């Protein structure tokens, strides 16, 4: 039975509570004698109710709209216990039985005669109120914790006693059902002590922290008493012992209920670790969701928008890069992730300055008891993660990763005399955090995040299509960010969250003597949100955020092309500049989560943004999202909203072009770009684990920035537009003890036009069909096998219809045909992952083999031409590629 169906709040609650305070509301009846125990005369002091038991409101009565009072006759013995309960006047529909069942558990102070307790018979009117019951269903649940208790061999443990103890207040208890399942619905967020007791198993204790509106799913695994020592009470649940079937580190999986957005896809920890084809990398796993196009260089192309239109956050801080070397791995360790929320569109007003999608990476709290060490080693990189408690309220976590592709690639390139490597390719990243909980209402966290990629070579052989494109080439991208987070709970209905960060982002690129970029951005961000229950049916979220800081750039090259622009690098105007532009982009929003009726959630919101660098633009973004559970397990969802995004800083730069002092690098009069987004769909839960989501979307794009090669001094204009429409289907099986997987399909069309009135053309990365199937199965004895299959439309290409010899350079330039009028052949690839895990008393060892492109399909990724474009050959993607890795947890 669903929890809310069990919720029943009889009006008598108030009466009884009052009674507990000495206000007699119980009508003692004339005592009825019985031969055995009835007193000879009525008591002079009537029994007083000291412990009321709330009756479940029968769903049948609730749905039938039955309310009223059941008149009971209760017999109370000399100890105050109810020995008999009879219905004198009933309501039917299960209400009589519910009243009797509850009343039998009442406890009274016994009636007294001459100071001595005596048995008594009394009448009690048990009232049921529909309004109170329904009202009680709505806002009381602030958070939920549910899950499964499992024992040896992944078998569910039935009748285990799960006790949940809040920091303040009485503990609650639940027994697991035959499937080992339990659920708590809580009227307050906070920290809870959870203990699990089951016969034949060792006791298990853990601390869970639930935020407002969390709906957290967990799996607790118990060890049998007879075989192994008890696991330490940890934040990470225990591992199964004796049969080697399970492993630590994946026992707690979390999923949060969508609340403020139309669609939020959340990756669970086990999915991240075991998803085939991603190497256990969380952000790469995001690319398998519907709405995300396939991209070989790790770009996130979300619902037909450019990669620049999607923003990536780490707990509210904008991350300047997402992947090392364009997709090898993400810059944040998966070990530190609590969750990843992915919003393909129509996202909350909490987020601004983006017209594509949002990826929000939530970092988790370090464990507060004991220590944990995790080492990962694979063919590309190695990492070490450690976390632990310093004091009761102070804990830490740290992670460091470094690649060794320098050794691999260095060996490969050393055999090519065309290349001299001056700096081998290396990437590394780190995260460190210190978390302090001074009170039960506060959580403070100081975190440092950093990443660096660097590589430098000398190309010794002039390229025959661009002979002057030779010399020393180097690239370096890195960031170092300090972040301070403070979460404070004012009350059970009001909380706040503040995040400030200060960091340095640096990008440098050297391309011979023709190209050079040295950019340093001292970025600050700040974000504050106050969330409070404004009324029983309305919750308000109010926030401000800002991104800004000085960006100092030294640039020499050609202007970066805009989406879809065909550029012959040797034949466009050159730009050189040394400039400092200061970004200042504050924003504020108000968002209301409204529950006007049962199952319906409306979220109207407005966001206001100011972008000084976008010609001092003010943008007001109204947004509306809704979710309506019109039937049990069926939810209708939709949204509409406006989303503005400032142009790239180089596009709005007013710095002079040193080669042409009369020109500026960009166009400082550019406005922000705009997108109007619509979406409508539904979700259906087939079971606890299996769900289906279907959603259609439509987006319009206005004021898009396009390059204007033909107009001096205005190299960029807000003349572009676009339209994107499509549908997404996600049939998902969330992780359970044996299986997880999903089937995602997206059909869409993304079109652009480069000036008003121009014909629409296909978007550069438009992919009509995207099919992704993922499945991972536990076979037992620590073995797990997974596979991912993808079938995707080929990327659009622009045909070359001829060439022209450029006598100024001695090389040929292509004559392009209709932009993006042809496509590569479809992409299809199968990736397989095999895991074997051994568990030990103090840790686990996981060995995995991941094979990309198992059947070695030659997937087309582009076209390579000869010197005069009369010959071509297809450039294919990676061939079959095995990757072997080890993960050790202690």
């Amino acid at each position: 039975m669903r929890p809310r169906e069990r919720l029943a709040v009889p009006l008598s609650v108030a009466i009884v509570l009052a009674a507990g305070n000495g206000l007699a509301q119980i009508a003692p009846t004339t005592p009825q004698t019985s031969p055995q125990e009835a007193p000879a005369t009525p008591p002079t002091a009537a029994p007083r109710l000291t412990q009321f038991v709330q009756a479940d409101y029968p769903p049948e009565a609730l749905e039938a709209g039955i309310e009223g009072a059941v008149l009971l006759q209760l017999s109370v013995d000399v100890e105050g216990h109810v020995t008999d309960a009879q219905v004198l006047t009933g309501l039917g529909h299960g209400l009589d039985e519910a009243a009797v069942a509850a009343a039998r558990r009442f406890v009274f102070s016994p009636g007294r005669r001459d100071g001595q307790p005596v048995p008594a018979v009394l009448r009690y009117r048990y009232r049921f109120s529909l309004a109170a019951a329904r009202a009680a269903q709505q806002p009381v649940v602030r958070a939920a914790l549910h899950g499964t208790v499992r024992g040896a061999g992944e078998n569910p443990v039935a009748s285990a006693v799960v006790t949940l103890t809040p920091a303040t207040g009485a503990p609650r208890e639940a027994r697991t059902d035959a499937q080992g399942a339990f659920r708590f619905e809580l009227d307050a967020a906070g920290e809870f002590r959870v203990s699990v007791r089951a016969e034949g198993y060792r006791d298990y204790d853990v601390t869970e922290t639930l935020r407002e509106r969390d709906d957290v799913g967990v799996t607790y695994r118990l060890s049998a008493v007879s075989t192994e020592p008890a696991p330490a009470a940890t934040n990470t649940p225990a591992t199964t012992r004796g049969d080697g079937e399970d492993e630590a580190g994946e026992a707690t999986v979390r999923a949060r209920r969508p609340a403020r957005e139309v669609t939020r896809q959340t990756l669970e920890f086990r999915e991240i670790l075991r998803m085939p084809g991603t190497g256990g990398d969380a952000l790469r796993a995001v690319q398998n969701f519907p709405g995300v196009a396939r991209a070989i260089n790790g770009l996130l192309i979300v619902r037909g928008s450019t990669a620049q239109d999607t923003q990536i956050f780490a707990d509210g801080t904008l991350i300047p890069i997402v992947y090392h070397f364009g997709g090898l791995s993400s810059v944040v360790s998966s070990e530190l992730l609590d969750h990843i929320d992915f919003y393909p569109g129509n996202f909350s007003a909490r987020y601004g300055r983006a017209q594509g999608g949002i990826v929000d990476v939530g970092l988790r709290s370090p464990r507060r008891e004991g220590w944990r060490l995790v080492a990962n080693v694979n063919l590309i990189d190695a990492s070490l993660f450690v976390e632990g408690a310093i004091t009761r309220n102070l804990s830490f976590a740290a992670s460091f990763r470094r690649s060794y592709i320098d050794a691999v690639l260095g060996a490969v390139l050393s055999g090519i005399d065309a290349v001299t490597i001056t700096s081998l390719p290396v990437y590394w990243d780190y995260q460190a955090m210190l978390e302090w909980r001074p009170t039960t209402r506060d959580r403070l966290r100081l975190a440092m995040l950093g990443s660096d990629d660097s590589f430098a070579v000398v190309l010794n052989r002039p390229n025959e299509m661009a002979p002057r494109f030779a010399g020393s080439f180097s690239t370096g991208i890195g960031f170092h960010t300090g972040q301070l987070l403070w979460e404070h709970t004012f009350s059970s209905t009001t909380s706040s969250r503040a995040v400030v960060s200060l960091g340095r982002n640096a990008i440098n690129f050297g391309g011979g003597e023709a190209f050079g970029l040295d950019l340093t951005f001292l970025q600050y961000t700040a974000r504050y949100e106050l969330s409070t229950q404004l009324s029983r049916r309305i919750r308000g979220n109010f926030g401000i955020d800002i991104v800004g800081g000085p960006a100092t750039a030294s640039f020499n090259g050609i202007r970066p092309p805009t989406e879809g622009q065909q550029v012959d690098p040797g034949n466009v105007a050159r730009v050189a500049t040394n400039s400092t532009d200061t970004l200042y982009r504050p924003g504020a929003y108000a968002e209301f989560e409204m529950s006007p009726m049962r199952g319906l959630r409306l979220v109207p919101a407005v966001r206001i943004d100011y972008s000084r660098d976008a010609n001092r633009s003010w943008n007001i973004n109204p947004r509306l999202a809704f979710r309506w559970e019109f039937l049990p397990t069926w939810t209708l969802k939709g949204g509409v909203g406006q989303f503005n995004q400032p142009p790239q800083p180089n596009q709005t730069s007013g710095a002079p072009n040193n080669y042409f002092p009369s020109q500026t690098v960009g166009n400082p009069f550019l406005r922000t770009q705009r997108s109007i987004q619509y979406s409508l769909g539904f979700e259906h839960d087939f079971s606890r684990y299996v769900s289906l989501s279907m959603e259609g979307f439509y987006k319009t794009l206005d004021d898009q920035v396009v390059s204007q090669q033909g107009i001096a001094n205005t190299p960029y204009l807000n003349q572009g537009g676009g339209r994107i429409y499509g549908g997404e289907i996600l049939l998902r099986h969330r992780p359970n003890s044996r299986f997880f997987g999903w089937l995602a399909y997206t059909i869409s069309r993304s079109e652009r036009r480069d000036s008003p009135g121009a014909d629409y053309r296909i978007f550069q990365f438009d992919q009509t069909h995207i099919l992704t199937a993922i499945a991972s199965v536990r076979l037992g004895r620590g073995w797990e096998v997974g596979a991912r299959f993808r079938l995707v439309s080929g990327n659009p290409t622009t045909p070359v219809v001829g060439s022209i010899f450029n006598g100024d350079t001695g090389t040929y330039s292509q004559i392009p045909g209709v932009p993006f009028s042809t496509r590569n052949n479809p992409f299809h690839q199968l990736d397989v992952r095999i895991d074997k895990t051994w568990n030990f008393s103090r840790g686990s060892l996981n060995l995995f083999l991941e094979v990309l492109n198992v059947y070695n399909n030659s997937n087309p990724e582009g076209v390579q031409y000869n010197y005069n474009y009369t010959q071509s050959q297809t450039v294919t993607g990676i061939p079959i590629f095995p990757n072997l890795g080890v993960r050790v947890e202690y």
Partner: protein
Amino acid sequence: MTRVKHLPFALAALAAVGCGNDLDPAWKIKTFRVFGVRIDNVSRAGATPANPDATEASPGERVALTLAYVDPSTTPRAVQVVWIIGAQASRMGNTIGFDPTTADILMGGAEQSYTVPMRAYGVDPQGRARLQALAFACAGGTVGFDATTRQPTCTGTGAESVLITRSLVVRTAETDPINHNPGLTGAVLYLNGDTTRPVPLTVEGDARVPRCTASDECPQHVIELTVRDGSRETYTARNTAGDPVVQPERLQFGYFVTDGEMDLTFYVDTAGRPSGPVRNKWSAPRTPGTVRMLFSAQDTRGGFTWIERRVTVE
């Protein structure tokens, strides 16, 4: 600030050096090929194609346009060239841009002369005034025009064509020294790389080289070009800060052959190698015969020259 993405640099590097390329290399002359257009200011005193020559012209001055080409056809074919010369449209330095409404049309062979008109000019990426030339060279055929595709045509059995663009720097101010074409005075071949025994390459093919008989890799010979003194002129350019700087030209040399195997198509001066020996490696073919070789040199400011030599493979 918005994220910055970049392609995997290693892959880019591999692509740049042409790994896995099964396409015809640029150094291989298999069809009618054009390698450049030399512009000589014939109005300047003492200017002849054999002497250092200005490649820029002021309004009213006359220039000679000479197409550098090789037609490997066994039977000599006439080459017909149509030139359209006009002001480049203002397109932010896009050298392909062309304004046909102010164009002059010249028809003839591989050599033409043209008087720089006095009218509006375009601007090149360095900010200099210039005219744009568009040429259509047709070997062994007749030049026509397809009204449907709006493209020139070259019709005839086995006819081949090349579309060419070339800019002409117009001197509207005499503040900067005039640019000259570089010069190539000769080429020598070092058999098997032995630099102590140079073999001069001649137009007639006097140099004799043994054919390759090796079962695997053929021996490589070194071809060195002789660059005329003064070819690497100094000029004033703007650095990235916008300040004027005097710097030497860095020449780009091209090597093209009808047979055998060249190591590189281009040799380019670099900052660390501004004027060293201009050398490349060549392997003789496995079959005897005459190999035609064309070597070119050009600066980045409009200067161009070439020489053609032959080698007899025995």
